[in-house]
């Protein structure tokens, strides 16, 4: 599958609030913990081999489960498959929790749900649809039904 690699690499170079060297272990049996520069940009988690300009990989942070593993580690599971569980080791409990929170909040779907909540609430409290002022009230992605787990054809 083709993707806009150069553009994604450029994205990975943007300054990030959440970037640190962590221990990272891949999902496969036999994978060991390796030091990687892990960087959160929009809803992607980039990871770099230390001192390399270009990221080794990019993980899309959607439809994934983030869990605390122990005092210093968290994991991200994709596709609900144990064989796609990545482990990350932090230097402190605080850092570990901050990473978990950041990753959860980075998800586009999480943000969409928040938006729909605010839109509904503001409309309920004020009688006005706050998206009208931006002219985006008809955009599919901001519709109230989008917050529910419906199949696309139901929308």
């Amino acid at each position, binding site marked *: *599958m083709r*993707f*806009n690699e*150069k*553009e994604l*690499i*450029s*994205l990975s170079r*943007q*300054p*990030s*609030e*959440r970037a640190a060297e962590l221990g990272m272990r891949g999902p496969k049996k036999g994978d060991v913990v390796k030091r990687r520069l892990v960087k959160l*940009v*929009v*809803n992607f988690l980039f990871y770099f081999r230390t001192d390399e300009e*270009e*990221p080794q*990989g*990019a*993980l899309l942070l*959607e*439809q*994934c*489960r*983030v*869990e*605390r593993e122990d005092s210093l580690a968290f994991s991200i599971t*994709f*596709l609900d498959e144990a064989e*796609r569980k990545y482990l990350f080791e932090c230097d402190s*409990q*605080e850092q570990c*929790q*901050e990473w978990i*929170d950041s990753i*959860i*909040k980075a998800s586009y*779907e999480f*943000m*969409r*749900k*928040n*938006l*729909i*909540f*605010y839109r509904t*609430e*503001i409309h309920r*409290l*004020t009688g006005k649809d*706050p998206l009208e002022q*931006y002219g985006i009230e008809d*955009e599919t*992605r901001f519709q109230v039904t989008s*917050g*529910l787990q*419906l199949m*696309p054809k139901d*929308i």
Partner: protein
Amino acid sequence: MKIHEKILTHYLSCTSPIDKEGYLYKKKERTSSYQRRWFVLKANLLFYQERPADRHLLGVIVLEGCAVQRCESEGGLFAFSMVFRGSGLKTYGLAAEDQLGQESWVKALLTASHCYLSLLVRDLGKQYEEAKRQAGPAESHQRTTVTGPGSMCLTQSMTYLNSCSSSFLMPGPERREGGSHSASNLLQAPPIPSKVINKRSPKHWPKRNAHVTPINGPAPPYGEWPQVDFDPLEDFTKLHDYYGEEVKQLRADWLMRRQEEEEHLEEDLIDLSEH
């Protein structure tokens, strides 16, 4: 760089909503010929394949840091392009069969980026706090906005804005006092980010689940809406009786400032002129 295709394709096929789909013509690289492709827009990702029923995806375009603009009609098609900002970065040439298709795709793509949504959520969060305040104390108790890592959202927003800033055009550094309202003006297409303060979160250690909402404490009485906490003291420096009046005033200010900076802008994000 490895992109972990399976994660992307899984996201595409899962139950979260598709934001737009349909046939578009895509310009083949380095030629000027078009190929008809089925496009699916979900979040900030634009997938394409030959036909809707195809299992095999041809490709995906991550929509961060690109400007979308209409182009001159080509061969009876209504063309538009996605221009990625940065040296050596691509421009994708796309076209719709009719003007309505062109307009709706351009609009959908303009509002697709993570950066844009982040700004929008932040702005609406503030409007929500304001609306609650104005509704009176009875309302404030009904919805328990929970403290905790909620203020992390501002931290996140700063990340997004920083990541946007090199791609988007910044109107000027003096955005702070405007708070949410300068953002609200900027959310009119084209979106241009403003600055926020970084805020550290208090420490917590509950177990969290990514796709089980909400994460910040007790669920609201209905639905599955998550709670996000914004500190109302963070960006609001003025309080006004009527939200609408303030927006009007700030719009006027912003328009004035924008005119001053016009010469510094390379181009509009939406280019409606024929070229």
